[in-house]
């Protein structure tokens, strides 16, 4: 996938464009991306039958995505806990079959653009002939632009209805409550938390469970505190999201013990899949009791099943 930050950076082509913020790249987003990837004839009905009505993509449109960073709502003054980093979002968009991505810097200037100017300077500029988006998609000054306007301007428009209950905010609510299984159903893949492995207290190694201490960027959502079964780098992983109350900690840490893994992860980016929430974190009577509890977590992690 080619990643560009300005329209002119993309090579000229006719494109079928999916547009949206796509935080989390959940099942609803996938429908929009699929609409761009597999765009069919403009409309059904008696007038469209007959030769020459192959789907536009059979004419060779490149599936492309136009997305925004930072999250538009943060520019309008709301705090948004992100489900995905931009890097992860782009990986997922590529996996969904997008061949080009245009990441537009969302700022007050972009938000103030006249809708027709946005269509001209962004969509036309990258050769968009078909535009797919969720039916509620709005753009431009005072959010006055919608898919109807794009139709008037001569784009093929695919309006993708909301998938029942699947929204980034619903996923956020579920994750904040630790409901990683239900979140996975909405996402169409396991819930994740992502970060860079740094140095922790090196306490786990002494207990027999060396953990990777994952530093998470501050605008990313971290699910509810607790102990989770999951996976990372293809290994089962017992994951602790918490403050290490046994040691009287207060700062939130994300730590993962990768089963059957040997090696150095320091400085690496790590995407942790969270499959199942096992228990609340707790302070124990003794270190031996803590080690025993972790041992049980590890056994349950080995038995855990990847959702979806």
């Amino acid at each position, binding site marked *: 996938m080619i990643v560009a930050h300005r329209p002119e950076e993309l090579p000229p082509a006719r494109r079928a464009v999916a547009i949206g913020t796509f935080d989390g790249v959940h099942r609803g987003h996938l429908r929009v991306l699929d609409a761009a990837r597999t765009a069919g004839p*403009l*409309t059904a*009905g008696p007038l469209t039958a007959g030769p020459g*009505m192959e789907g536009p993509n059979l004419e060779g449109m490149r599936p492309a995505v136009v997305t925004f960073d930072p999250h538009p709502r943060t520019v309008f003054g709301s705090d948004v806990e992100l489900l995905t980093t931009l890097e992860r979002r782009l990986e997922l968009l590529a996996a969904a079959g997008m061949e080009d991505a245009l990441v537009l810097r969302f700022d007050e200037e972009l938000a103030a653009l006249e809708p027709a100017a946005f269509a001209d300077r962004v969509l036309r500029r990258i050769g968009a*002939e078909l535009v797919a988006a969720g039916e509620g998609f709005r753009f431009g000054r005072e959010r006055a632009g919608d898919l109807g306007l794009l139709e*008037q*301007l*001569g*784009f093929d428009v695919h309006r993708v209805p909301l998938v029942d209950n699947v929204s980034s905010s619903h996923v956020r609510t579920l994750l904040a409550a630790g409901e990683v299984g239900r979140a996975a159903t909405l996402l169409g893949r396991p819930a994740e938390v992502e970060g860079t492995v740094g140095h922790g207290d090196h306490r786990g190694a002494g207990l027999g469970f060396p953990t990777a201490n994952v530093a998470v960027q501050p605008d990313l959502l971290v699910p509810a505190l607790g102990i989770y079964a999951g996976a990372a780098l293809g290994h089962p992983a017992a994951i602790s999201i918490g403050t290490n109350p046994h040691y009287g900690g207060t700062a939130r840490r994300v730590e993962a013990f990768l089963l059957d893994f040997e090696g150095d992860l320091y400085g690496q980016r790590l995407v942790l899949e969270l499959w199942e929430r096992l228990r609340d974190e707790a302070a124990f009577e003794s270190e031996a009791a803590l080690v025993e509890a972790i041992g049980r977590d590890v056994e349950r992690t080995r038995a855990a099943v990847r959702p979806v």
Partner: protein
Amino acid sequence: MPPRALEPAGVALVDKPAGPSSFAVVAQIRRVTGARTGHAGTLDPFATGLLLLLSGRATTLASCLVGLDKRYLTDVDLTARTSTGDPEGEVMERLEAPDAGELERRLAGLRGEIELPIPTASAVKIGGERAYRLARRGVEVEMPLRRSTVYALDVIAYTSGVATLDLRVGSGTYVRAIAEALGGHCRTLRRTEVGPFSVADAVSPEAFEPGRLLPEAEILRRVGAPA
């Protein structure tokens, strides 16, 4: 395959038949021209009449054409209400048609600046959900009002409970809402004019050819916009 062309540029006046969606007509015209094709306002599938389709470079004229006044001819069946205000919905209620005097009294309240509830069958959102979806689920919703201007509303004929009306309205007026306010539903709807353009000058989608496109300069002159 080259990108969709900016030429031929111009505005096609097309007389949409009943049945296809406006977008099917857009696609049909585009097959003829090979140009990108937009429009200056759609018609429901059951409706017929004037569509302004914008070809090539003229798609940029959409913004100065969508707000034009419209003229419609409609048969309003005053013997039944339907769930959508048009013939595609289910009959909700059978009614006794009013006499001519009562019809005229009802019409009198619908001229000028009026506020009408948006039809339940429309795509407007109520509490985050499409009105037509709520309606389909049987949820009773209070539809928001929309301010409309009715410049003229004349009865052409009134027989067997069906009133043939000639309406001149501002952009954004739902004729279905007027039919509902009269106590009936639109049995047919035909758009006869959009601003200075008349369906009399339109061709069927099949008869369209690029030579029928009105040049952009003429469009701008006729709507009185600076070129």
